[in-house]
């Protein structure tokens, strides 16, 4: 079987992904690969920089989730400082992380996935985009804009700007929250909660119509990795790592984030610049796991907020047996549950009397030569790990991002979709779109690149057993 595929220059451009399918002699799909052909090199070019620059540098990894990198990076820097940040600083960081979750999930559901969900996978590709959604259900599109606006506005109120805020700093945050801003944020959230609950109710009615996709979109047996709180509840900022297997048995629990290197290894394949993290004790590739909203909800015993807990119970009913929800299609459902949770938890944080406390930063110099920060980004567990020299300059960096954790699972999912929908030796547009859609379930952030509207620039190659390309579909944006 040939895995050597010439890389088209088009796919080197940020935002391009490629999928290759390998056929057996019988015509059945033998292998499927998801190729990420861009290289950015953050881990390398950060070497030699002062550690205090890392939050600003690594936030540039992404235009969608800079807040996530900012938080994980500052947590790694807190570890380098060897400080416990003030409680109010932690609450404020949590607030920003939840606002980030809100705006990012809203973007994924309302703008990226709704064309498939609302218009159908086999609908006219010329209309299967955000404008098609606006034509069919303008209110839904407006609600998506409103949710994203609220999340972004809260980030801006806290951090001073929506993209790449610099308010979170090693040791805490650099400015406390004032009562006017708190009031303004609280005033926005009831509308957000109404939209979130309405959308959740709407999507619940739609789920049965996606039975076929739910059965074939990444229903493989994998483990699930995420942070959970010390009480085992849904957690996005701190806590412990938990790993459950496909049957719902806890494989690892109460793993301190600093101990992640014991359980997470990274493999490299020659067909992609994205690494393949795996659960070390099971080796590669058997140690496959998923992260993100699906994993977080599968691992959490409860959310800890009223409406989200009701939704979590309904989420668990998506799986007919008593195990975790295994279909990657249900990432969409999990995102909506998390949007509800994020809004409810932001309300709780903002109503906390301590949220206006002015002690929000611990000051220290570098007191350790190694620091690890782990948080939950919208797409899953995000790990920043730095080593510094005596001058405080970075000597080594390891970034394990959410999309990377899901790399093995995305490849398996493509294979499953191809098995189900590729018939014989000819590709169809419907198949192409389902392959794209299964990728989108994970909401991958290929350096922000796969956040594509409607049609992601995508190239699919169909090869026979000898490795000869027998069909190719290329779709530019």
């Amino acid at each position, binding site marked *: 079987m040939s895995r050597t595929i010439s890389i088209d220059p088009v796919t080197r451009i940020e935002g391009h992904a490629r999928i290759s399918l390998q056929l057996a002699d019988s015509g059945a799909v033998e292998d499927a690969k998801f190729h990420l052909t861009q290289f950015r090199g953050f881990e390398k070019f950060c070497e030699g920089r002062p550690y205090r620059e890392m939050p600003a540098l690594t936030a540039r990894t992404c235009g969608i989730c800079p807040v996530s990198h900012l938080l994980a990076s500052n947590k790694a820097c807190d570890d380098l400082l060897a400080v416990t940040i003030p409680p109010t600083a932690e609450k404020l960081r949590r607030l920003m992380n939840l606002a980030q979750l809100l705006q990012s999930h809203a973007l994924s559901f309302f*703008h990226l996935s709704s064309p498939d969900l609302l218009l159908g996978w086999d609908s006219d590709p010329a209309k299967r985009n955000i404008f098609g959604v606006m034509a069919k259900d303008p209110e839904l599109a407006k609600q998506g804009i409103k949710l994203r606006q609220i999340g972004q506005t809260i980030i801006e109120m806290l951090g001073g700007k929506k993209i790449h805020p610099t308010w979170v700093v090693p040791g805490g945050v650099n400015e406390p929250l004032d009562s006017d801003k708190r009031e303004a944020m609280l005033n926005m959230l009831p509308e957000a909660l109404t939209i979130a609950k309405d959308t959740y109710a709407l999507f619940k009615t739609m789920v049965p119509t996606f039975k076929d996709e739910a059965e074939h979109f990444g229903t493989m047996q994998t483990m699930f990795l995420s942070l959970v709180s010390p009480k085992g509840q849904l957690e996005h900022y701190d806590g412990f790592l938990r790993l459950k297997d496909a049957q719902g048995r806890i494989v690892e629990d109460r793993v301190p984030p600093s101990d992640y290197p014991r359980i997470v290894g990274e493999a490299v394949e020659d067909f992609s610049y994205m690494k393949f993290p795996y659960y070390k004790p099971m080796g590669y590739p058997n140690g496959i796991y998923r992260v993100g909203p699906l994993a977080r909800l599968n691992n959490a015993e409860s959310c800890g907020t009223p409406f989200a807990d009701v939704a979590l119970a309904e989420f668990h009913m998506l799986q007919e047996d008593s195990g975790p929800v295994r279909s990657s299609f249900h990432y969409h459902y999990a995102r909506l549950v998390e949007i509800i949770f994020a809004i409810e938890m932001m309300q709780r944080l903002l109503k906390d009397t301590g949220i206006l406390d002015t002690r929000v930063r611990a000051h220290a110099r570098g007191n350790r030569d190694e620091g690890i920060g782990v948080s939950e980004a919208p797409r899953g567990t995000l790990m920043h790990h730095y080593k510094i020299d005596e001058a405080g300059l970075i000597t080594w960096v390891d970034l394990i991002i959410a999309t990377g954790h899901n790399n093995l699972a995305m490849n398996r999912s493509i294979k499953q979709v191809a098995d189900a929908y590729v018939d014989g030796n000819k590709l169809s547009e419907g198949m192409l779109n389902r392959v794209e859609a299964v990728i989108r379930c994970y909401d991958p952030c290929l350096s922000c690149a796969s956040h594509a509207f409607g049609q992601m620039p995508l190239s699919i190659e169909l090869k026979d057993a000898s490795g000869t390309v027998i069909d190719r579909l290329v779709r530019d944006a």
Partner: protein
Amino acid sequence: MSATVPQRDEHSHSTAGGPTPDAEGTATVHPSSTTRPLRALVIGYGSPIRGDDALGPLVADQLETRVSADPELSAQVDVQARHILTAELVDDLARAERVIFIDAAANLPPGEVSRQRLAPDASALSTMAHFHDPRELLAWCQALYQRVPETWLVSAGGADWGYACYALSETAQTAVAPMIAEVLSLIGAEPDIPDTGP
């Protein structure tokens, strides 16, 4: 040779929806203003760390200073400096009678300032979700709110787009004053900055 420009504050300078600096430099919030109609909305956009691409937000920063000094103007005009154009801006666009985008251009001679009308264009669909073409946002506006503000793009040719470059080229700097004058003219304010453009 690039000339150093004053280090800009990357904060947004919305006088409408978001936090705005008061006289003491403390951010204040005007929650009710997010729904008020605007005579004009000015959005300068571009990367602050890619050399001349910073023209848009830099010009917006300077315009904000000019607008905020005039109570009558600041009540009707919202100036925003943005890294990129994002979807939620549609809500702001829909509230404005006139919108002026400010951007650097790679297809203009360096330093040359251009003013052009923009119309909605659904085919200007972005492949990325984290930034949009202004014409696409206008098309969103049309589709969702059945109205499109009168929209202009004021742009100037850039010369240097280097990575991690925090300064405008000398050529691009010459475009700042004429761009400000152009925008002030479009929002009906008296230009008070000498025209030093090419």
